């Protein structure tokens, strides 16, 4: 029972908004010691699992490339490009991205996108440009944050609820590995991937609808902001 105090440390830490790195460090030490490890074993556990989880930090290798391209106007060009693409609103654009991300992840291509690879340099600037074009004015800071947050969400929801339809993905292999070895079963990855399809459809319908609703919210809030601060209204709106 007492090892559950580690979970309590995590929850309290996040609720009281302490520095997350510190929270995780303290929770790890507390849990290790309560779980009857001696201090040297706790150190070794930290070291061993840190070495084993190096793959989650690999995305840092993307930063120099994206940094270089941003220096040469990648985000600006992403905005220009979307500015020329017809009637695409931010919500519609992000719904298309959500679908593309789900379908490509379902074919195992889940490193095709990501917050560092695609969202920061391409998706978020494009969504902002689309929002500014369809509402006809510059986005105030708060709405800009909203569009960026929804851009990140389209990427994350897409990859989560697409990748499980693919059989060689970590989560599917974890399920078969765990169940087949623990309970001596012979479950095939394809059977699991089949059951991920209905939820992939639900995810697209639900999150897609919310992305489209975001357009309506943006329009409404822009209208309010324009009324309050005398921002330039969309063309023809005040005649």
């Amino acid at each position, binding site marked *: 029972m007492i090892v559950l105090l580690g979970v309590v440390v995590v929850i309290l830490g996040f609720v009281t908004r302490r520095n997350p790195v510190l929270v995780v460090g303290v929770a790890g030490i507390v849990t290790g010691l309560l779980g009857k490890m001696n201090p040297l074993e706790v150190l070794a556990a930290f070291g061993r699992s840190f070495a084993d989880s190096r793959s989650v930090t690999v995305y*840092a290798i993307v*930063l120099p490339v994206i940094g270089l391209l941003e220096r040469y106007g990648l985000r600006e060009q992403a905005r220009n490009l979307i500015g020329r693409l017809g009637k695409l609103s931010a919500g519609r654009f992000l719904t298309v991205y959500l679908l593309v991300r789900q379908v490509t992840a379902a074919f195992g291509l889940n490193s095709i996108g990501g917050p560092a690879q695609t969202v920061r340099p391409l998706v978020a600037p494009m969504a902002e440009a689309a929002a500014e074009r369809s509402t006809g004015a510059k986005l105030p800071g708060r709405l800009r944050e909203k569009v960026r947050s929804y851009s990140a969400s389209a990427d994350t*929801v897409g990859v989560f609820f697409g990748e499980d339809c693919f059989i060689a993905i970590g989560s599917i292999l974890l399920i078969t590995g765990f169940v087949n070895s623990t309970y001596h079963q012979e479950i095939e990855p394809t059977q699991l991937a089949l059951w991920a399809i209905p939820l992939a459809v639900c995810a697209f319908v639900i999150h897609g609808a919310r992305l489209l609703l975001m357009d309506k919210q943006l329009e409404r809030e822009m209208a309010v902001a324009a009324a309050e601060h005398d921002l330039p209204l969309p063309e023809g709106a005040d005649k």
Partner: protein
Amino acid sequence: MIKVEWLYWLIGLVFVVMAVQMAGDRSNPKRWTSAAFWGLLGLTFPYGTGVAGATAGNGGWTLPAEPLGVAVLTLIVLAGFNFLGKGVPVTTTGAQREASAARLGNKIFVPALTIPLVAIVCASVLDESGLFESGKATLLGLGLGCVAALVVGMLITGEKKVTVPLHSGRSMLEAMGSALLLPQLLAVLGSIFAAAGVGDQVGRIVNDVLPEDSKYLAVIAYCVGMFLFTVIMGNAFAAFPVMTAAIGWPILIQQMHGNEPAVLAIGMLAGFAGTLCTPMAANFNIVPATLLELKDQYGPIKAQLPTGIALLGCCTVIMALFAF
């Protein structure tokens, strides 16, 4: 054969080089401690090769794990007590960027698209070729894609100095700060929880509380349990063995004869719905907020929370209706 450890050494080297740049950056008020943090993080990558080798027991080069543990705690102290600072970014002005966007046009997308393209080719076509360490083709593809994209990017932009992308990348690193370390630390916490028996305890409590012979309650307990435990752990993979051993297998499958693939696949996805809603899944929720320079680091979570809760509902309903 290309080994994944080589990619880790490359990342370690990038961090060390950036740390050296930071040490010389007088615009950063905390340049020495910042340099110490990123340099030490860089060194953990090659050192980790020896530690991972010792865990795998494959006869390669081995090193003790305890010194790495000390290094990790040092990183936690440096990041946790705000010893990380940032300098003035070395970059171009808005006007310069507009001008270069106009000059390069859509060619500037080529390097950005090189990364996923190379990753796809490596993960699909070259996966079976024996060129890559087995099971690591996707990860290595991402690494190779970045190296290729850097070369293509320098050719297209006409940039000749390799220090320029490193400075730009360093500015992004400084902007992200300790958020970059958080995913790896959470993975560490997950394995310490597992080693200390946190999962077994949760399973025992759930078994005590759940009434017998109630299919719908058991389905709800499994799906909601996966969701909540993932919210706490930040990772559905950590929650899955715990909740499956506690409810999914003994109750839903053995007692109530649920369809095995349906119960297990949907249970995992209920965990994914939880991942959408938690700061503990830092790499999916906090890292994007810092990368996108949001003031509210919970912005992406707020955008995902209603979807996550709705999907938890879908998981529960679909499992209750179709898995029995």
